[in-house]
């Protein structure tokens, strides 16, 4: 094994370029967050699975199910407003002390289904977080406010007239301050992102630096396996400690099975299984929570699953699930790229975001780390070894398809199987294939413009493009399910907000259309995909939803 490189060997830490988003002096630091956690642990307000046995009965004002972008923001705000808040998280309570930066540790520890979540037909790999902080613990930090054209779509088609840029602005400003969301300077982009920028500039395509939720970022490149320096302002170092500091409680390794609804149609609490951290299986201990209000924030796949398990299946529960389906291409360069180091996403191109009637898409980069790339390649034996043997010379760029803007589009759906497992289905049709082909064409052109000697697709039977003359063979390749690698890191929809109970699950104020005292605050309320990375939209909507939930507690 090589000597570990020194942090000084990777690109120098950068200062955020957007000073306006810097946190003020009152914003707690990572060290203060650790103190809040330690105090909560000592006082029993932060508990994990191994702390619990038998049946535990708890009472609170509001129980929040899931500690990701939706749940943590909601829970912290309600606790700070003086309410008695209990936050339940099915994943473990992992902090940077657990993050050894090895993919072999991180994916089983921090991702859903031990990193092996996929659509039921295995055609799409699903990257989704599962620990305190949810997907924010492992996401690649890219933050955007919800684009106005998406809000306009929601106002026009989903009865969300209140959702304007002006309405959301104060909520976005608040979370941007707390999470230190600012523009990552172009000068700090790693070589992988730089290929995206250079390729786009040569082609005359739009491309820009992204905004990131970081404070004291070391530019390490390990966002996806748990930030080693608490530079990423993920929920487990921000809003979760805020909750604990305000007197709220957190139980990790605690999977909510059902929402309890009484005869009058009012949510009364939840029933949860305590999980054994090692095996992931129920330990036998249970938690029963009696609450005035239940907030589901388990994400776009697990929130519909909880509703379905609870028999709260009226309306389109688990329907219209959006995934921003992802395809990628690997460009091989003469020079070293070392895309395993440096902020994994810092440049994006929205050149093809609007393609009229066809699916639009946007272009970003990924961390070029060995397990992720070996898995994504779909190859075996000598071809896999040849690709991986050049890992440090590879740039891997991706396209993300924007689904769900057509209100009639079925998109994906979530259901439970006979084993009680959540199953995600995402039928792919000719319109997806057309967009996937266009995304591949764009990615190949980007790499060629940036100087790649060869560009390899992730088809099971890969296509290699060495010049524009090879593009027709890429266009002729198959783009159906299980013919090429397809991924998703953005799960949205499945319990949409809207005015019409036949077409949505919760009202514009996040309250369930029928069940009193039940709210959904997470990515599942989005009535379409976003065309940008979703984390900040969820933070912002959750910040706004605090007020609606608080009203129900009056």
């Amino acid at each position, binding site marked *: 094994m090589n000597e570990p490189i020194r*942090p000084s*060997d990777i690109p120098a830490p950068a200062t955020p370029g957007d000073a306006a988003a810097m946190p003020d002096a009152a914003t707690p630091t990572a060290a203060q967050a650790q103190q809040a956690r330690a105090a909560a642990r000592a006082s029993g307000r932060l508990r994990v699975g191994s702390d619990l046995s038998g049946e535990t009965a708890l009472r609170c004002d509001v129980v929040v199910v899931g500690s990701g972008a939706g749940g943590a923001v909601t829970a912290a705000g309600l606790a700070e407003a003086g309410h008695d808040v209990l936050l339940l998280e099915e994943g473990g309570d992992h902090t940077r002390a657990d993050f050894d930066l090895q*993919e072999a540790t991180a994916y089983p520890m921090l991702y859903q289904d031990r990193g092996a979540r996929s659509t039921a037909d295995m055609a799409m790999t699903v990257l989704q977080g599962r620990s305190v902080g949810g997907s924010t613990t492992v996401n690649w930090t890219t933050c955007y406010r919800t684009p106005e054209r998406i809000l306009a779509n929601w106002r026009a088609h989903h009865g969300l007239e209140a959702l304007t840029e002006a309405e959301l602005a104060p909520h976005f400003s608040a979370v941007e301050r707390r999470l230190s969301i600012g523009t990552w300077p172009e000068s700090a982009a790693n070589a992988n992102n730089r290929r995206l920028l250079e390729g786009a500039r040569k082609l005359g395509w739009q491309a820009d630096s992204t905004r990131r939720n970081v404070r004291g970022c070391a530019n390490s490149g390990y966002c996806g396996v748990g930030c080693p320096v608490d530079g990423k302002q993920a929920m487990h170092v921000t809003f979760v400690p805020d909750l604990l500091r305000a007197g709220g409680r957190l139980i990790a390794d605690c999977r909510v099975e059902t929402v309890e609804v009484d005869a009058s149609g009012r949510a009364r609490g939840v029933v949860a299984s305590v999980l054994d951290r090692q095996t992931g299986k129920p330990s036998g201990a249970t938690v029963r929570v009696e609450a005035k209000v239940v907030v589901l924030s388990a994400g776009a796949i697990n929130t519909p699953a909880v509703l379905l398990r609870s028999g709260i299946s009226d309306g389109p529960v688990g329907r219209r699930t959006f995934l921003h389906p992802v395809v990628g291409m690997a460009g091989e360069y003469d020079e070293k790229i070392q895309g395993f180091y440096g902020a994994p996403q810092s440049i994006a191109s929205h050149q093809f975001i609007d393609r009229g009637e066809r699916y639009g898409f946007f272009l970003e980069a990924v961390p070029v780390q060995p397990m992720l790339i070996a898995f994504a390649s779909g190859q*075996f034996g000598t071809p896999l070894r040849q690709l991986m*043997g050049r890992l440090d010379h590879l740039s891997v760029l991706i396209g993300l398809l924007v689904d769900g803007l057509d209100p009639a589009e079925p998109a994906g759906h979530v259901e439970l199987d006979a084993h009680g*497992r959540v*199953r995600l289905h995402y039928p792919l049709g000719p319109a997806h294939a057309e967009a996937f082909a266009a995304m591949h064409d764009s990615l190949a052109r980007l790499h060629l413009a940036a100087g790649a000697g060869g560009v390899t697709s992730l088809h099971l039977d890969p296509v290699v493009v060495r010049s524009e003359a090879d593009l027709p063979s890429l266009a002729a390749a198959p783009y159906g*399910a299980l013919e090429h690698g397809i991924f998703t890191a953005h799960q949205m929809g499945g319990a949409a907000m809207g005015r019409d109970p036949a077409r949505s699950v919760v009202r514009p104020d996040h309250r369930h259309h029928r069940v009193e005292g039940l709210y959904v605050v997470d990515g599942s309320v989005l009535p379409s995909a976003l065309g940008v990375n979703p984390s900040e939209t969820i933070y912002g909507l959750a910040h706004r939803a605090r007020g609606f939930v608080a009203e129900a507690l009056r």
Partner: protein
Amino acid sequence: MKWTRRRLLGAGIGGSVLLALGGLAMRRSDATRPAPTTLVVLSPRAWQVLAAVADRVCPSGDGWPSADTIDVASRVDALLGRMHPATAAEIEQVLGLLDNALGGLLMDGRTSTFVDAGPEGQDAILRDWQTSRIALRRAGYKALSGLCASAYYADPRVFPKVGYPGPPNYGNVAPAPGGAG
């Protein structure tokens, strides 16, 4: 054609029946790896098939460590032990289908189990599954090759071969072996 997980499962059960028939029809050689006695979820035979797959997904030579050295099959077994039991059962069934001699004879004209097919024969079978017109086979290939490639390429002993110096040391406390999860 769409293949749901349930259809995969159904085919897997059929495959297990075929596997049993295949076992009656063809004598297996004994020249397979002895399965460890500490398996978490996989049967010894399924582990042997998986180890044979791992050896072809991540072959040794030219300084690359072997999949056996990295203990890929047992790592995958341990991972499956931490997943939903139905998921582990499906992987077991896919391994049965892949190994199945009678099924291979009927569909591809091959006369040996996967384990006994030899390196070139095994590569040909994997290639058949990778590019098969049957989505079930492509899904099976993707699951098995993905699990093996992930376990292998995540191992620090492989990092020098891919030009990856490994993560820098930020002074984080590494969890005890098996202590994370």
